Every structure is written in C-alpha cells, then in structure tokens.
C-alpha cells in the first residue's frame, strides 16, 4: 500500500523531474565554476533602503514576468491544445495603456490603481478576441494569435502616438524594484501573489478540472455538461490578465515603455517554460508548478551565461543547445530506453510498454 502510494506520488510529480534536474544541474555547475555565484548580501539602494542582492535574487527577480506568463500559458495550452504567441505583444499593449493612463494626470496611488485596472481590462478584451477566434471560430491558437503577434506592437506604438514616453514616480519604482522597507524585490512578491491567486482558484473552483477535461476530450466534456467554448475563452482571458501584470512589471522596471523591446521574444520563452515543465503542448493535463519551475530554469540559464561573460547577443545559441539537451532527456523515446534499462538492471520485471508511436 505504501509502495503504491509512493509510486503514485512519483507518477504525479515525474514531470517535475526535468525542470528540477535542469535547475539542479545549473546550480551545481555554478557551484563548481564559482562558489561566489551563490552569495546573497543585503546592500542599500540609492534611496538608502535595505535590498537583497546577488545572482540568486536576480534569477528570481528577472524571471517574474516569464513566470506569470507561463502560468497563463499553461492554462491556454491545457485547454486549447495550442499556444498563444501574442503574449509579448499583449504585454506591450497593456504597458502602453498603463503609461497612457499615468501620463494623463498626476501620478498618485489612485491613478496607478486605475491604470492597472484599465490595462488589465484592455488586455482581457484582447485575450477575449484571441479566445473567440479559437473557441467560436475553431481556429488553431497559433494562427489566431498570429494576428496580434503581427500587429500588437504597432497597436502599442499607436496608443502612445509614436513616442516612447517615460513615467517617473516613487510608486512606479516601488512596483518595478523595491518597496521601501522590504528587502525583497517587488516582482517576486507579485509572482507569489499571482501564484496564491491561482492556488486559491484551483482549490475553490472546478477551473482546473474543467480545463483538463476540455483539453483531454472536448466532445466528452460537452457531453458532461461543460461548455468547452466558455472554458477556452476563460483560459485566454486569464492569460490576458497575466499579460497585463507582466506588462506593468516590465514598464515599472524601466519607468518607460518601449513598444519594440518590452518583453521581446518572451512568447517563445513562455512556451518553452511550459514545455520544460513537462506539460504536453497538445493539451490535457497540466502541472502549473512545472511551468513556473521551467521559467526559473530558463532565467537561471540566462543569468549563468551572463555570469560567464557571454555576450547577450550570443546567449541564444547556448540556450538552444541546453534546450535541445533537456528535451532529448525528456523525450518519450529516451525515457522509454531508460525505463527498459532500469527494468533490465532490476531483473526483468517487464511492464506493459507504450506504443512506438
């Protein structure tokens, strides 16, 4: 009984192995290369507040936007069996709206709140647009979101009238870097907040079950009284909200909006995070913790490469090699081979194998 329970535990969490191994390998590599990589110190920033510094902190901090996007992307992937490639553009649009609202008047706590609310709303409307194309018109998600991928950044440019305006205010700095008195970077706190929100939503509602049901078999879900259209639409709207949060963080970090470079290529990283987290890109069951770990693994890789003085333009090539190694390790064929090897070593207790295809 205990063994069965243990097996079930391993079965449920086996997809976390790849991201955990990735993070573990990176950390061990850094430990061997340069132990000072792990040093975390408390320094003071320009305003004289105590702040945490160090590579580990910058991994956690830098991956914030990606982690939030990966959470939303996991839901979309699970529900629709496809990926949203417009998340970076949606974040840029949301950021533009945020800046536009802030620049309309004096920046106070209320105007920031209004800005966040409005940009969240706009991003959700765009998410709804994507979701409608996917659910109602039955277009593959990648194609449907290709529309916003093509023109999203131009819409962001258009919202601000062809300028890259700046916003400077202590409130914005607090969102982007540190709240006075709290040494932990605010983006990390925002990620934790979003994570808690998702956890509560999964605990209290049937969201998780319904999304998985729709992803596994849409027809069966319909027969069971779940409206697949509504669930898919909901997933895209949630992703829109995630995009707006990422956009606000991205804008606050730099105190300006640059529609061309804000969260550039983040859509690819977000899909990658979902895939590294062991989620099937064809939809169905999902593990959100895997996606979040995937996001941190990607950021850890980037920071490691930076620490090794690799130029930022070359990082992509090394990233590609690591990605390939990871997915090869996680591929069904290699996993099968490992399993067979283990069975042979343990004395030939052969279980039913998966099909070749």
């Amino acid at each position, binding site marked *: 009984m205990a063994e069965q329970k243990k097996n079930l535990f391993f079965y449920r969490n086996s997809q976390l192995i790849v991201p955990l191994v990735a993070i573990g390998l990176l950390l061990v590599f850094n430990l061997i290369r340069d132990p000072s990589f792990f040093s975390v110190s408390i320094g003071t920033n320009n305003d004289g507040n105590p702040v945490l510094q160090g590579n580990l902190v910058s991994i956690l901090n830098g991956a914030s936007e990606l982690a939030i996007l990966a959470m939303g992307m996991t839901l979309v992937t699970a529900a629709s069996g496809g*990926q949203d490639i417009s998340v970076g553009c949606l974040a840029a649009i949301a950021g533009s709206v945020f800046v536009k609202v802030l620049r309309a008047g004096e920046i106070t706590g209320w105007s920031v709140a209004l800005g966040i609310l409005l940009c969240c709303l706009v991003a959700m409307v765009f998410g709804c647009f994507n979701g409608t194309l996917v659910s109602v018109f*039955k277009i593959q998600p990648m194609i449907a979101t290709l529309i916003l991928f*093509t*023109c999203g950044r131009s819409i962001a440019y*258009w919202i601000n009238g062809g300028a890259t305006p700046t916003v400077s205010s202590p409130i914005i700095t607090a969102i982007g870097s540190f709240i006075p008195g709290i040494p932990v970077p605010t983006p990390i706190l925002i990620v934790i907040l979003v994570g808690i929100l998702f956890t509560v939503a999964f605990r209290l509602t049937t969201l998780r079950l319904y999304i998985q049901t729709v992803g596994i078999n849409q027809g069966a879900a319909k027969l069971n009284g779940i409206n697949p259209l509504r669930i898919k639409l909901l997933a895209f709207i949630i992703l829109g909200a995630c995009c707006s949060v990422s956009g606000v963080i991205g804008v606050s970090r730099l105190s300006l909006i640059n529609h061309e470079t804000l969260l550039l290529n983040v859509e690819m990283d977000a899909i990658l995070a979902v895939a590294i987290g062991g989620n099937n890109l064809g939809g169905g069951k999902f593990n959100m913790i895997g996606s979040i770990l995937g996001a941190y693994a990607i950021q850890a890789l980037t920071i490691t490469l930076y620490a090794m003085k690799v130029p930022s333009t070359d990082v*992509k090539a090394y990233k*590609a*090699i690591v990605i390939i190694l990871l997915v090869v390790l996680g591929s069904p064929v290699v996993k099968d081979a490992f399993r067979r090897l283990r069975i042979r070593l343990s004395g030939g207790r052969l279980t039913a194998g998966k099909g070749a295809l």
Partner: protein
Amino acid sequence: MTAVSSTAAPARRREPISNANLLTCISVGIFLLMYITAIITLGGGFNKPQQIFDILNNNAHLIIIACALTIVMINGSIDISVAGVVALVSMVTVMFLKGKLWPAEGMSDGVRVALAACIALGIGLLFGLVQGALIAYLDIQPFIVTLAGMFFARGMITIVSVDPLQLTVKEEPGILEIIQKRIEMYFLGSPNKKGVIIPARMEIGVIVALLVVIIIAVMLRKSKLGRHFYAVGGNRQSALMLGINVRKTRFSAHLISSLLAGLAGFVFMMHNVSGNATNATAGEMDAIASSIIGGTLLSGGVGNVIGTFFGVMILATIKLIVVASGLREPWWQTITTGAMLCFFILLQSVILSRRGKGRPALPAWMKFRKE
C-alpha cells in the same frame, strides 16, 4: 466507348471542389481583386509591370521559405527555424565571399559563388538532419525543436561575426556582377519621363523561387513522397496502418524544409548582398501567414504551394497598398496586415465549417434558431 465517357464526365463535374483548392482559388481571386483595385484607385506604380517584378524581387526568399513551411504544415508539423537559417546563411555566405571565412584567392568569382551556394545548402542540410532526427526519431515536439533551431541560428550569427557585413562594388566587383545579374524584359518595359523604354528587371532569385514553387507543386501532386506528406499530415495513425513509414516521411519533410531555408538564405543574400543579425526578422511568421492565406491548414493534410505563392503576393501587396494610400505612420502597415490576416483566417474558418457541418460554430446567442 462514347457512352462510358459521357456518363463519366458529368459524374466528375459533380465532384465538389476540395477544401484546399477552394481556399487557393479564394486567395488567387482576392489577390487579383486587390491588385486590380489598386491599379484603378491608386494607379501610379501599380500600372507598370515592374511593380509585380519588384514584389517578386523583394520576396523571392519569402516565397521559398513559405513553400518550406507549406510542406511541413501539410505534414502536420511546424518549422519556425527557417528565418533564422536564412539570416545565418546570408551572414556566412557573405563572409565567405569576402574571404573572411578562409582566404580564397586562387578561385575565380564564379567558383566562389558556386561554393557559397554549396555552403548555403550545407548549412540547411545540417539543420534539417538534426531537427528532422530529433522530431521524427526522438518524438520531440516540432515547435520546441525548431524554436531551439531558431535560437541557435540567431545566436550563431553574432558568434560568427558581431559586425554587419556588406559586399561592396569596390572590393568584390566580379562577385557582385554575378549575383546581381538582372534579366531584362523589354517587351514588359515602360517608358520613363524622357520616353526611353526601361525594361522590367527580374533577379535570378525570382527564377529560383518560381522553380521551387513548380517543383514542389509537382512533387506534392505526383510523387509518392508528396502523397505521403498529405497522408501523414491528415492522420498519422491511419498512415501507419497503410504501411507508410511515418518517421521517414516526417524526417524528409523537415530535411526538405531546412534545405529550402538554406536556398532561401542564398537568394536573400543575392538580393541584399549583406549579412546582418536582424536579417529576415520575423520571417517565419510571414511565411506561416502566407501559407495560411494560401489555404494551408496548420492541423495538417490540407494545402498546396500555388496558394502559398499567392499568399506571399497578397501580403506584399497589402504592404504596398498601405504605403501608397498615404498612411505613412509606421504602425499602419502592420496593423493593416494584421487586419487582413484576421479577415482571411475568419473567412477560411467560416467557409470550412459551412462546408463541413452546414453552419459555423456560433455560440447559442448568435444562432437564429435552436437546433
């Protein structure tokens, strides 16, 4: 004999047009409609045949990678590394032609250009072998593999050379003369302000691109491999049951796609004569969009390259029309492209679902009567 043929003929006529052909016809029709509207309302450059050749000259590489994408998409897969390969190939070939890869003093210019073409195809082959093997034989999701391929290609460009390179008339006159050769067609020329006939000029790359379109169209229709692409893309399990080697077919699709990307890189280099990390940015998305507009479905099993060719032409024409109609702000071009893309995608969806089940899958409140 006559009785047989007379009974067979109407039966064939009644056979409904296939979805792929219908979508292709729509895209061809819309291209013609758009171009004729542009001639009537905007005039100017659109009246001259040279405009068509300009579109072709500027988009020859895009035609080739869109064809590559069409093959892969028919096969039910995706390849987003193509534009990265194009950029990498253009960089490496420019480096080679400038003699920076290794000194090539003894060779004549013609041999060097031929060698550059071989290098281009070689890079494509390497990408194709690795990606195809990973996707077909290790069962890894194509999106992830080709995404890594894109990252690798884009990263390699700056590793190979940080600075942008350019072939110049001063340093490489012979090579430039070969790769920038234009085919001049006087019968399609138009008089300039002084009344001298300026011939329509077409680059060699365009001929390469058109040849690729024709060869692939024939291959998809006539050859065994081409039929296998459709079968595997339509339903992998049934293809396996029919005795098709699914893995080999998927491998071939990715191999062909990357080879074509290498060729496209060479064509791109012939047109732009420069190597730069930002070459062909977002080209993969343009290629995917062109394929879709031409009637290829990402789900696989449906598509044809003639439609893809017109998809590229439609995208290019939209951009030209936006600029010509006076919307000069930088954002209008892409916003209009996005809107057009939206229109095409919706049109396809509505047509396909109308043909499939009678009515598009509208939500309950949009339906006129209850089912």
